């Protein structure tokens, strides 16, 4: 194997930084008459180690993004939309008040989905500008990972769907594995897309009005998710009598009612400050104005 080819074992970013130096070292060592095999093994082992380290860093960054307020909200919203809706629609509402509870849950889910969509659409023109300006290579790797995991998730969903597992009494190991993979990859895909959106937003240049709108959407979104959780708990307690779930649902609803005005007020103040700060300039870069530390496309 040629020394230059050996570098492919390393991540691209590492190669760009250290590749030429490492190549020079390999060539110097070969000129000294050192055996090629140990050198090759050392480089391959080192490259795999770097790739492992990079993967660990990426996973840690994704986890950090998902752990953030906004990230976890989106993750939660996605999970509930993804898993909860299927179970809800599959259930029958035997009594009129149960149907009302179900409608409330579906409305909350639709509202949350609309808010997530609106949050993305608001930043869409800036994203297009970023991509047209040659920004694609900066996000290509993240998008690739997210798309790959999403493809696996879709594949496992198709497999599980095709197995008609709900009608089977004893699930085979294959179906159990499929369900597990579906769950894990769905969570992974949502988390990776959230992290990708967060990372992409750092590159976007947004007008103050757009930033203010995003701040407001970001303040309303947790409320929508809380309403979704509360209505789900209330609906569940209505169809499967459970005092615990009823209490939890009511407590969640009460907390939502108390905290929502505070969140919206804070977002409004931040939006006003952004507009005031940018009154002399038409465009601001959110990376330079980290008013709340997190940005999303």
């Amino acid at each position: 194997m040629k020394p230059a080819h050996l570098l492919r074992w390393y991540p691209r970013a590492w190669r760009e930084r250290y590749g030429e130096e490492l190549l020079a070292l390999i060539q110097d060592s070969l000129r000294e008459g050192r055996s090629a095999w140990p050198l090759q093994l050392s480089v391959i082992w080192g490259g795999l180690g770097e790739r492992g380290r990079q993967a660990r860093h990426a996973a840690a960054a994704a986890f950090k993004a998902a752990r953030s307020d906004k990230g976890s909200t989106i993750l939660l919203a996605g999970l509930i939309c993804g898993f909860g809706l299927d179970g809800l629609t599959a259930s029958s509402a035997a009594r009129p008040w149960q149907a009302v509870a179900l409608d409330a849950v579906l409305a909350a889910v639709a509202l949350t989905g609309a808010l997530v969509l609106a949050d993305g659409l608001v930043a869409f023109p800036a994203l297009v500008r970023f991509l047209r300006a040659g920004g694609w290579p900066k996000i290509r790797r993240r998008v690739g990972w997210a798309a790959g995991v999403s493809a696996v998730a879709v594949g496992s969903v198709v497999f599980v769907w095709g197995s008609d597992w709900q009608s089977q009494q004893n699930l085979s190991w294959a179906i159990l594995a499929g369900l597990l993979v579906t769950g894990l990859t769905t969570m992974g895909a949502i988390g990776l897309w959230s992290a990708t959106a967060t990372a992409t937003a750092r590159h976007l240049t947004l007008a103050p009005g757009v930033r203010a709108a995003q701040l407001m959407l970001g303040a309303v979104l947790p409320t929508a998710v809380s309403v979704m959780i509360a209505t789900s708990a209330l609906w569940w307690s209505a169809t499967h009598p459970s005092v615990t779930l009823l209490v939890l649902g009511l407590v969640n609803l009460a907390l939502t009612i108390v905290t929502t005005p505070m969140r919206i007020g804070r977002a409004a103040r931040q939006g006003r400050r952004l507009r005031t700060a940018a009154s002399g300039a038409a465009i601001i870069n959110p990376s330079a104005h980290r008013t709340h530390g997190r940005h999303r496309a």
Partner: protein
Amino acid sequence: MAPTGLRRPNDPPLLILVSLAGGPKHGHALAKDIEAFADVRLGPGALYGAITRLVERGLIEPLGSDDRRRPYRITPPGSAALAEALADLRRVARTGAARLGLDPA
């Protein structure tokens, strides 16, 4: 101080710091120097893996160079980390020597 990861005497990061304590060197010169004073032959992968981590921790830094062979030098935090690691090793060596009756502790 943040953990330096310098624990064993044959750790590549420790060997690199010891080598750079004698002056800036590029990769090949580092490998030859380490082989000379420690009788440890570091492969290119191990050497550059350790260099990457040391640069990230700010213990060494690259010097400007037009050549592909970029030299590195030890930084003040690197010197401090090396001194700390050597003190640890000295303590262990003294204790071991004393217990063997080779040298008073």
